[in-house]
């Protein structure tokens, strides 16, 4: 039982991270029907920007004196960097192909993924880059169960980001415009909504969330690597498909489920197969219910 609760907490932590990444896939798909295979790279880039700034702050000693400021600044800078990176990628690699067959943009996305991942390798090296190790040692002890301070931070921050995103998409005028653009671009233009701006915004938000997830993973596992975007990227994509691609609530749910399944699978079945579970789910969903849990139909929560 103790180990079950421990696994549950670990599952929520990992699931939240997958959910953050999955949102980028699902939002971009919702608005321009493109699977952005380069999305995992934004996650990796975020992890790197995070480690660069956190190491910088640690070197100056600020991490000791102003930990909250340093963390906030690192998250904000990484999210902004990736937001602009994504806007640039969209303008250069996807926008010119918008009127072409969908496959063209998809291939372009694969190319961007390889390009960005290799760019990271060239500029940051092939080896793991360690996060400052003294961050968030320890945790809350409840007998046999331990909840790390870091886990608390990750879960709270993830929750806050998800709530903020929901408020933005479902409660603000710009969120309405995003949903309208996803539903009918021509009509949106006829009511003065410029789809280019909305598409840029969608990429920026998705990449910003992925960047935050990148730092969390860096903090959680202690290091980042140039190719770290690949596997979580595909798992988060599976999560988005599981939830129903294009559906925001679905992506959150799918992320949590994939995270849980992975942790419980690793714990109770075999750790060797932990990367397999997400793909078993992906194949199962595609086979039995390609629209995912919340996909299709007239439904609020679709973008």
């Amino acid at each position, binding site marked *: 039982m103790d180990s079950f609760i421990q696994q549950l907490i670990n599952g929520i932590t990992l699931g939240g991270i997958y959910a953050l990444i999955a949102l980028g896939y699902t939002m971009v798909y919702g608005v321009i029907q493109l699977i952005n295979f380069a999305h995992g790279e934004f996650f990796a880039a975020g992890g790197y920007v995070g480690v660069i700034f956190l190491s910088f702050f640690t070197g100056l000693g600020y991490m000791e004196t102003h930990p909250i400021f340093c963390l906030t600044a690192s998250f904000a800078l990484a999210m902004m960097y990736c937001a602009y990176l994504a806007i640039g990628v969209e303008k250069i690699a996807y926008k010119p192909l918008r009127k072409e067959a969908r496959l063209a943009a998809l291939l372009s996305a694969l190319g961007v993924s390889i390009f960005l991942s290799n760019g990271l390798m060239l500029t940051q090296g092939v080896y793991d880059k360690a996060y400052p190790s003294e961050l968030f040692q320890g945790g809350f002890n409840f007998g046999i169960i331990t909840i790390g301070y870091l886990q608390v931070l990750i879960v709270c921050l993830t929750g806050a980001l998800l709530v903020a995103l929901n408020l933005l998409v479902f409660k603000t*005028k710009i969120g*309405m*415009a995003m*949903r*309208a653009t996803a*539903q*009918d671009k*021509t*009509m*949106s*233009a*006829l*009511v*003065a*909504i*410029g*789809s280019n701006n909305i598409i840029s915004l969608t990429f920026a938000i998705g990449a910003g969330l992925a960047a935050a997830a990148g730092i969390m993973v860096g903090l959680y596992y202690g290091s980042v690597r140039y190719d770290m975007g690949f596997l979580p990227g595909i798992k988060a994509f599976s999560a988005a498909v599981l939830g129903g691609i294009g559906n925001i609530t679905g992506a959150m749910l799918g992320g949590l489920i994939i995270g849980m399944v992975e942790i419980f699978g690793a714990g109770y079945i075999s750790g060797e197969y932990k990367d397999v579970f997400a793909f078993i789910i992906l194949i199962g969903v595609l086979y039995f219910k390609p629209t995912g849990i919340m996909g299709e139909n*007239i*439904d*609020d929560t*679709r973008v």
Partner: protein
Amino acid sequence: MSAQPILELKNVHSGYGSIKALRDVSLKIYPGEVVAIIGANGAGKSTTLMTICGIVPLEKGDVFYNGVSVKNIAPEKLPPLGLCQVPEGRRIFPRLTVEENLILGAFYRNDKPEIQRDIEHVYSLFPVLGERNRQKGGTLSGGEQQMLAIGRALMTKPKVLLLDEPSLGLAPIIIHQIFDIIADINKNQGTTILLVEQNANLALQAATRGYVLETGQITLEDKASSLLHNPEIRKAYLGE
């Protein structure tokens, strides 16, 4: 009728790729008018409106709004200038609520209290929309969707309103109601209206002037009342 047309098409050619939908179309619409374009299915009526709004690319010729060429202006920049279209098939955002659809009509506007007042005004024109304000646009009936589409367009504060087949697929009693509102918008708000209709009888009764469009070309232009009594028109479009 004032001297300068508020909307003018000059020798417009446009189409979808190799298909030439419009050939040498010229129109003039003066402030305060209700102008109808009538024509058969596929004559290019909708293309005319979509070309004015920049959705269908203009190949030759020019479109002037208030005397200024708008051919290089992006479609989403036109509603703030006062040029708005209710397209064929209404194109309500199906997964947004009635109220959200209306709010998006005012997307470019920032005058919150006035937006709220305009929403109330739309509800007073179409009380059924007020009753269903939290319902998804996609769940409304055809007539209600047409009302919402017109209401949404009014939220952009149009000076010129382009209406594409507002009667399409609606019951006669609803059509009547909608055309009353269109007349009201023209009279009480001074909005100029360009109306495209297959239902020629209806359109010419509502309009002051009319154009006849046949396979992408204007073949006739006259006062609406004259067109209504023109034997050829009666034969071709009024089923006599």
